[in-house]
């Protein structure tokens, strides 16, 4: 066998290995119901959940728990997924500062006992590009 053939076979083997590793490591977007089912089955791999924060009549987010003087590394909130299932989420980090403003939240992590332990929070904030209002536009000419 020529060396180039050996090299080609090695390359293909590594490439397949890479594909397999990506497939193995790739996470999924799930609902909280599925996240609970996975945890019940003993599957502790981390998943992504997309959701919104429940707000009361004054647009305040309900169920935020962050008391830095007690423990700066404990932040808990409730997230409602796309199927309208609410779930308590704990994040062992300080509360992200822009959390209150965010419209959509993506968390990664897994269910443990009765709570979802998140290790990453991705916030979809109202982007400045879609800004549709000018401050003081009516006041000043």
């Amino acid at each position, binding site marked *: 066998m020529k060396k180039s053939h050996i090299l080609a076979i090695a390359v293909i083997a590594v490439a397949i290995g890479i594909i397999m590793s990506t497939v193995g490591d790739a996470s999924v*977007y799930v609902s909280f119901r599925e996240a609970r089912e996975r945890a019940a089955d003993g599957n502790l791999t*981390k998943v992504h959940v997309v959701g919104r924060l429940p707000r009361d009549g004054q647009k305040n987010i309900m169920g935020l728990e962050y008391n830095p003087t007690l423990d700066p*590394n404990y932040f808990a909130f409730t997230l409602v997924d796309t199927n309208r299932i609410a779930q308590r989420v704990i994040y062992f980090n300080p509360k992200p500062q*822009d959390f209150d403003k965010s419209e*959509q939240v993506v968390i990664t992590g897994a269910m443990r006992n009765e709570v979802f332990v998140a*290790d990453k929070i991705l916030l979809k904030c109202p982007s400045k590009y879609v800004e*549709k209002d000018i401050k003081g536009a009516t006041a*000043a000419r």
Partner: protein
Amino acid sequence: MLNTFIGDLGHISVIVAFVAATVAAYSYYMAAREKPLGETDASWLRLARTSFLVHSGAVMSIIICLFTIIYSHRYEYYYAWSHSSNHLPVHYMISCFWEGQEGSFLLWIFWHVIIGLAIMRFNRKWEAPVMAVFAFVQLFLTSMILGVVLFDVKLGSSPFILLRDFLTDLPVFKTNPDFVPKDGTGLNPLLQNYWMVIHPPTLFLGFALTLVPFAFAIAGLWKGELSKWIKPALPWALFGGLVLGVGVMMGAYWAYETLNFGGYWNWDPVENAVYIPWLVLVASIHGMVLWQRSRTALRTSFVLVIASFLLILYATFLTRSGVLGNASVHSFTDLGLSGQLLIYLLAFMALAIGLLVWRWKSIPVSEKELTTYNPELWVFVGATVLCLGAFQVLFTTSIPVYNAFLGFLGIKSNLALPADQIAHYTKIQLWMGVLVAFLTGLAQIMWWQKNDKNTLANSLAVPGIITLLSAALVILLVRYNKLQMSGTYIVLLTTGLFGVLANLGVVLTLIKRRVALSGGGVAHIGISLMLLGILASAGYSNIISKNVSGLVYSKEFPEDLNRDNVLLWRNDAAPMGGYDISYTGQYYDVPGVPGYVNKELLFRTDDEYKALARADIKAEGKTYYKAGDTLEISPENTYYRVEYKQKESGEVFTLYPRAQVNEEMGGLLASPDIKRFVDHDIYSHISSVPDPSKEKDWSEVKEYTLAIGDTIYLNDYFAVFRGVEPAHETAGLGLAKGDLAIQGDFLVFGEKKQYHVHPMFVVRNRLIGRVSDEVEDLGLRLTFINVDPSDKKFTFGVSTTQKDYIILKAMEKPFINLLWSGTLLMAVGFCMALVKRRREASIGNGATPVVAGQKQTREPKQQLA
């Protein structure tokens, strides 16, 4: 006043640029058609050149128009309104220019124009076919900013759109169509950084430079000159590798300094999108060098050169089409260009692959089989390793694309990027690093000598032994510092050291012979150092701010959770790692005064950007402002002063991590401050502060009636009421003659120092006004409530609040300087190689066989020597 002229001029320039690019592409094509390389149809060529010059002029005109709009604050234009503001300094106005998608396209277009003009001037022989490709690319790029509607299809997004045409629903435009906002919404504060002035142009120059070897390869395929394109294209490819590599690292450095994820690389799809083509471009350079030296790997060079440009287009598609969606934190927003971007990508893919397939059989292949003693084999293996590394990042980063594609076919897919991206990428990229470091050392040693079993063993022995010894030493040192070192880390360490030492040996011998030859060696030392720097700084990044108290909730989860942030009360020192750390107050940046100025020395006015000095403002022994002076401040950033005292040595240093309250970006943006030592960095950032947008919770006012000289306890602090005096900080009050202003003089004894507190009592037009004074350090506020002239008693109100605090994360990054210095060395090496290949290419420009022969004879000499 609304000015539509400059926007119209800009828009017309865009249209002219687009039409001229189309004409240039067609006429360059006609000029080169059915003629061998170097011969052209004179009249078509004249037309082509003229139209490319017209195109260049129009592009300049677009840039001037857009910059004028930003520079003169013409907020009637959406671009200026949404990316700039009145208080932005000029150098950041340049960054506004490319903050938006349209501006960054423009930057890319600009570089293509400059490079195109250089090719027209310096590569006459290749001009027509190469420039046909260039003009074709420009046609696509200018179409992205065209902003015209053709047959109900919107082509491109114009940067010259008026605000009233963008925000059509805004009520103010119905009543007053000529409304112009007074101020813009400003530049994203994270981009207000000097790296953001220089990083995007560098990166886009890198993007633009990948087009050159691609255009030469296409021209070569088209004209059937299947090997001659390498020589003129190689210096351009090296230039591209240099600029793109440096550009990527600039972005990494910016992220390290400005963002707060705690590192320089986050595997964000936007970062990956540039890293992938850079790896392939570097691989293609190796392929081209192999052809230049021993007439092998030509097909590889073709494939890789074409792939690197197509990957740049793919990167553009990923970051600008909105396909990444949730997957990236900093891709551009979707401007509805995804269709156009996809057509751009597919058109060039079809063109390049079609030509390649057509000529594939006639591309010469080397007959001789490479043996293990041929350095060419190892260079080739190295290039393959780079491509495999690129493939992993590409395959994973494309996950959102698979979802979008399946969704397009009607299949719902819920695939997400790996939850632990770092672990996922590291497990392949680390081994790529190992192989790259090893192969650079091996191939460089073999490259410059004649190899057989004996010579190879001899020349590997010395660097090999030194490598093993130094690796053993490092491992012992790591153990001595009570750190673990896994097997993979040991392998990376050893190969990294081998890469440095073997290449160093090569460079030292080459310097004696001819310095110009050592570019490759220098660049490879740089790469190996970078790998070692990454190993140390990422593998041994150490959180110093481990929280040891406040474990209230952790009983729920007994596992070891990372609790990486600590709360620091103002002026309370807390132990952390090997340091005693204290947070000692908030500071502002005052232009003209070195360092930062304590907030307590400043009295804020109605104008956000102006403040009054409450005391003399001194820095480094010089007085910059006297008490009562008005001074300009930069109110956006608050700097939190954090003092680090090393417990063992008693050494003290101060960091000022900053945070910026920004409503539009949604909250608080924190940026780290970094203390740099030779062998490590201390990196700290604020994770949280009391919400600055909320009013403080003050306790109910407690009244005290005091006589001069009385002593009281305020919120655990001991305070002396020393007297009443005429108020001296009245500049902000606008007092008139006959008004009265007095102030109480208190001395409060805090933990660290004493505070003078001066609540004011003002009688103005027979009305009483009270200006209370706050000591932020102590969470204390005093109000002068009343004067009782009869028995010389004064009433003061005292209220208290929670003390100020910050939540801090701090970490140590060992040997991160290896990464930055390795980057510089890599850049130097690229430059040296560039100079050498450029000289060879210009010798070859005459294309006389004699010159070619000379080169042929020189190379064996190098091999023999």
